């Protein structure tokens, strides 16, 4: 959906109804996972783009 409406930086994260959540993990595990997704989002903000671009979490984890 984000690609169709033309958002310029799109990060594929969790599911529709909890983009920064993963209820299948323990609370601690979910928080660590959420940090990775947020780090990927922040990294994506530092990448120049010319048009709507989709980013994947795995490529952009800081540590």
């Amino acid at each position: 959906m984000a690609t169709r409406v033309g958002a310029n930086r799109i990060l594929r994260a969790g599911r529709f109804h909890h983009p920064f959540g993963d209820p299948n993990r323990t609370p601690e595990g979910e928080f660590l996972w959420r940090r990775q997704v947020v780090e990927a989002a922040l990294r994506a903000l530092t990448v120049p783009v010319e048009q709507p671009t989709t980013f994947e979490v795995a490529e952009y984890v800081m540590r």
Partner: protein
Amino acid sequence: MAFRVVHYLNQFYGGIGGEAEADAPFTVREGPVGPGRRLEQALGGDGRVVATLVCGDNAFHERRDETLAKITAAAREWAPDVLVAGPAFASGRYGLACAAVASRVGAELRIPALAGMHRDNPGAQPLDPPIYIVPTGETSVEMDAALEGMARLARRLRSGQRLGPARTEGYLPRGIRRNTGTGRPAAARAVDLLLGRLGGAAVETELPIEVRDRVAPPPPVADLAHATIALVTEAGVVPKGNPDGIEAARATRWARYSIEGMERLRPGDYESIHGGYDNAWVNQDANRVLPVDALRAMEHERLIGRLHPEYFVTCGSIGNPTEMRRMGREIAREIAAAGVTAVILPAT
């Protein structure tokens, strides 16, 4: 002999359930289901709905290619003459699924395919291979009119006759232009158009220029460690009680709420009022939409300069693009004035 229609529906119209059942896997039912029965009536004996393909909106999108292949194989078994999908009205995920199904099945089975949805539905954007989209109202209040329009177009497509312009045949323009003669020279038509406009009449242009709503991407963030990051969301997560009355659908209001000094969004203090997704997970823990806990931790570790002390929220369910653009601009003004460097926008 009545022509054969295969009908695509999501989990809601297919009678499985609402948002909580959006994971429902693809299934096939013989004959018409739910609105398919009225579709069959609207076809008036000219067509029969021989099978209904039902798939949860989340299930479809999360395994798109695999699901499209299964749907196409299933449709082929029922030897349809026409594929009809929806109507999806303003539901974005459903509209996108309808359009994708119509396009794939139509192309692979080489049959006419149409979907019904509101003109602002993200699924109404032109596709390749192209399909016909019958414009509908925003909600299922207008189901009957939607099905009438879809049945009418299905009959026309089956007739084998060349279709007229989109406007007269009742589908959304596809950017296909055919020249016809009107018997009057262009100069005369142009003068009539001008006089009509000057006189206040609502005369339509022969040549609509498409306005593309593209936003040029800004330059990237140069220095995250000194950047102020703000959270803006359309997920409808608000303090319990929804103090500013943000609407659960077709929202016209947005609000800002302080997260100053918060290590995380406290469970129990927030709720989601967004009618378009299953709110259970977010109601348990709002950080699953607004990752305040993660961003605050990163602020402490100086990976970012600052988490902006407010978050901004509206509800994007069945959002009117004009209202959404206005709210986006208003929020952007506030954010720019506050010196925010970049925004993370959690979307549902």
